């Protein structure tokens, strides 16, 4: 069991060494600062698009929403428009709640057994909280990083930074130099959430049992990204002006590598991000896009009112009423059941008998 996360951990440590040694000792700043990030972005965008097109290329033959509430039927019965949507607008709402608030995960329960005879189910909120914390802190971190790619820095990002560092901890601002912005909560939450998601894969027996190396790798990688970022900000200072010179050059396609002021840890940070981007389209991380296409969530439960078309619907062999009556006509007549053809109209009886023999 352990080997699954050991492999992933080793992989991430190896990536760390490659980037650190490569940039510090081997002087490959151009490779790690420019070439690999560009390649990673190409892999990410290309892979992402190919993946979406691949999914979109598969048909949606049936409308199979999972209904999680009352259907729309009789006018005096109140339907649950969001969990059992019948219109496009309601489907959009359902998707909104699913994607923005992880509504299905919010329902999560934990099963247990008490007194050896009663099965009970308890509301289990921690995975939902952990996931929300993880995704939203990550999003905040990403948005904050836009300041490195836009000049002048838009006021929206400055506002976000101010909110993110709203809880300024006095002792932290004392320990670190004056002029350093407040501690970003998002980085801390991201680190904590990743740690939580890792620990539950180690300590909850069932989750441990189902986890693959591919579940640990992104966690370690994101941990590495967050940790190296926090290090650079609060401990091993990097020259922000030099970093911005690099990032602005990168985004404007005039890449430059500043001569000094950027330590190896920056290249580690950047390399981890590049790996994450390149890995993204080929991994489970594509759930980010896939959730939009999930047929059990993005379809309306109105298939009795509006016909859903299957693009590859094809004719199938059926057992017709005529064949049925041919086989059972005598018995039907004896039982007083109406028939379409009376026996005296037939030379069919022979065929029917042959058919019967052939089939039995």
């Amino acid at each position, binding site marked *: 069991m352990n080997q699954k996360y050991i492999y992933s951990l080793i992989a991430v440590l190896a990536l760390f060494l490659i980037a650190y040694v490569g940039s510090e000792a081997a002087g490959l700043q151009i490779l790690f600062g420019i070439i690999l990030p560009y390649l990673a972005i190409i892999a990410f965008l290309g892979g992402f698009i190919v993946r979406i097109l691949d999914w979109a290329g598969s048909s949606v033959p049936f409308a199979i929403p999972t*209904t999680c509430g009352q259907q729309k039927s009789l006018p005096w*019965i109140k339907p649950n428009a969001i969990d059992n949507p019948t219109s496009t607008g309601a489907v959009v709402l359902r998707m909104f709640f699913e994607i923005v608030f992880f509504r299905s995960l919010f329902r999560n329960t934990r099963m247990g057994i008490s007194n050896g005879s009663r099965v009970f189910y308890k509301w289990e909120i921690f995975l939902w909280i952990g*996931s929300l914390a993880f995704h939203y802190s990550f999003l905040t971190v990403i948005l904050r990083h836009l300041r490195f790619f836009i000049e002048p820095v838009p006021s929206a990002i400055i506002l976000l930074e101010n909110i993110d560092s709203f809880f300024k901890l006095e002792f932290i601002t004392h320990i670190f130099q004056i002029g350093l912005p407040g501690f970003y909560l998002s980085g801390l939450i991201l680190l904590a959430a990743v740690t939580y998601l890792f620990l539950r894969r180690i300590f909850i027996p069932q*989750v441990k049992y189902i986890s693959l190396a591919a579940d640990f790798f992104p966690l370690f990688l994101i941990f590495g990204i967050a940790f190296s970022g926090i290090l650079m900000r609060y401990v091993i200072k990097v020259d922000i002006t030099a970093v911005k010179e690099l990032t602005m050059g990168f985004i404007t396609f005039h890449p430059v590598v500043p001569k000094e002021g950027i330590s190896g840890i920056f290249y580690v940070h950047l390399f981890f991000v590049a790996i994450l981007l390149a890995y993204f389209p080929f991994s489970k991380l594509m759930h980010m896009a896939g*959730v939009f296409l999930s047929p059990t969530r993005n379809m309306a439960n109105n298939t009795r009112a509006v016909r859903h078309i299957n693009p590859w619907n094809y004719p199938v062999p*059926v057992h017709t009423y005529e064949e049925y009556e041919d086989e059972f006509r005598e018995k039907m007549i004896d*039982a007083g*059941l109406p028939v379409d053809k009376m026996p005296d109209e037939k030379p069919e009886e022979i065929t029917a008998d042959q058919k019967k023999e052939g089939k039995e």
Partner: protein
Amino acid sequence: MSDELLKPDELFAKIDHRPPKTDWMSTPVQIRKGMYCYASNYKSVEYLGLPNARPWNPLDDDWKLPENWQEIIHQGFKERLEKFRSFKIFMDICVRCGACADKCHFFIGTGDPKNMPVIRAELLRSVYRNDFTRMGKILGKIGGARPMGLDVLKEWWYYMFQCTECRRCSVFCPYGIDTAEITIMGRELLNLIGLNIDWIATPVANCYRTGNHLGIQPHAFKGMLDFFVEDVEDLSGINVEPVYNKKGADILFITPSGDVFADPGTYTCMGYLILFHYLKEKYGLDITWSTYASEGGNFGFFTSHETMKRLNAKMYMEAKRLGVKWILGGECGHMWRVINQYMDTVNGPADFLEEPVSPITGTKFENAKSTKMVHIAEFTADLIKHDKLDLDPGRNDNLKVTYHDSCNPARGMGLLEEPRYIIKKVCNNFYEMPANTIREQTFCCGGGAGLNAGEDMELRMAGGLPRANAVKYVHDKYGVNVLSCICAVDRAVFPALMEYWVPEVEVYGMHELVANALILPGEKRTTDLRGEPLPGMEDKADE
């Protein structure tokens, strides 16, 4: 019930949810008696013209597979990835968060980790990664990939037939991954090389030939309903003579044949007869039964989409032949998943029918205007709302009733309030089971999707445990003695399940409760449909 079955407390004590020491990929499948259903009878497979008809036994090493079976599975997999976006997405995006793990009744009842929905899907996903993804090819086992082999195939077969396609896990999945969809695909693939179970294959063949799963021929079908007519006449003095195969009737009625065949479904069937007779006498309802389309259920759905379509076709073909206006469907679970989410798509458009309107209340069933098929719970709820039924709920006062939401009407339709409305109007004592076990979170009876055979009784008792345990809760707390339901498979499965876990609880179909309460003009009734004295009639019933 089989003698070898453990006692309930022994079975319960045996459940261990701690995963084994060995990784699931390195834990070989053991096909165990009591947990699987017998192999499909080759005659049934042959009759339907499905692949690889031959006698075989799951316990044998040799499953008599076609030589190129791996190629067939690989091609079948590929084809389905292209034809079903659901399948492809569900193969790709699972993050193994584990939210589904303890939502499955089979996992709760067996503790077998391969019954966690996520691993059930991983059984297929591991092969998918190996065969269809670059990452899987490069990383192999460490990337969660493994090549197809006989062991994998046997594992697929064992666990695809330990899933009842109930969709409970999909309610909790943050991406809506639906294990029913995975199981449907898995079973389609298995059927490509002739690996079905007989409890599915033979009903399907029967249904194809005689119009119903039980293979009841037309004259016998009528004969069986005639028995009910006699029974109803005995207990009420009213002749409820039904009409068969009538051309030009207003409405065609289709319900599962299980209710024609075995108790306690038979009482539900008598309930329909009584209701229709009442409506005919009072309001001139013109409704016909069909011997050709004499099955509402569709075990083809548990075989492949194509087989589902082949069986379902009868409903529209018969409606067209008889020239009815619309179709009324009886109480059934998966039947309604098929009707609600598949029928119009596969066999529509039903442009030869009219948009359904209740001939009695004038209510337009807008929600069924395209399929032209109405659920009897919708139909009856509308009747009661418009005060068209003369009901005496006091006649059910000896019953303390709870209600089981069938998986498919709950999670593939959303039919939650209609049955509750009806039951509360015909019964004075109604109690809900705990919130996490009803409505969209309802638990399977343990025998859905074709698993209600006799030989897999341990599987059924284990899978039915969460449901039975919730019934036991209301039984202990409120003295509930009736488990009501709107599904024929439920009515076939629950009696054994209740006898095993909560012996004091009886199983009732909803329309049995309706018919108990329904006052027929001119009737002389002292007993309910089961011949038990009505409350307050204990003395008279003996006479």
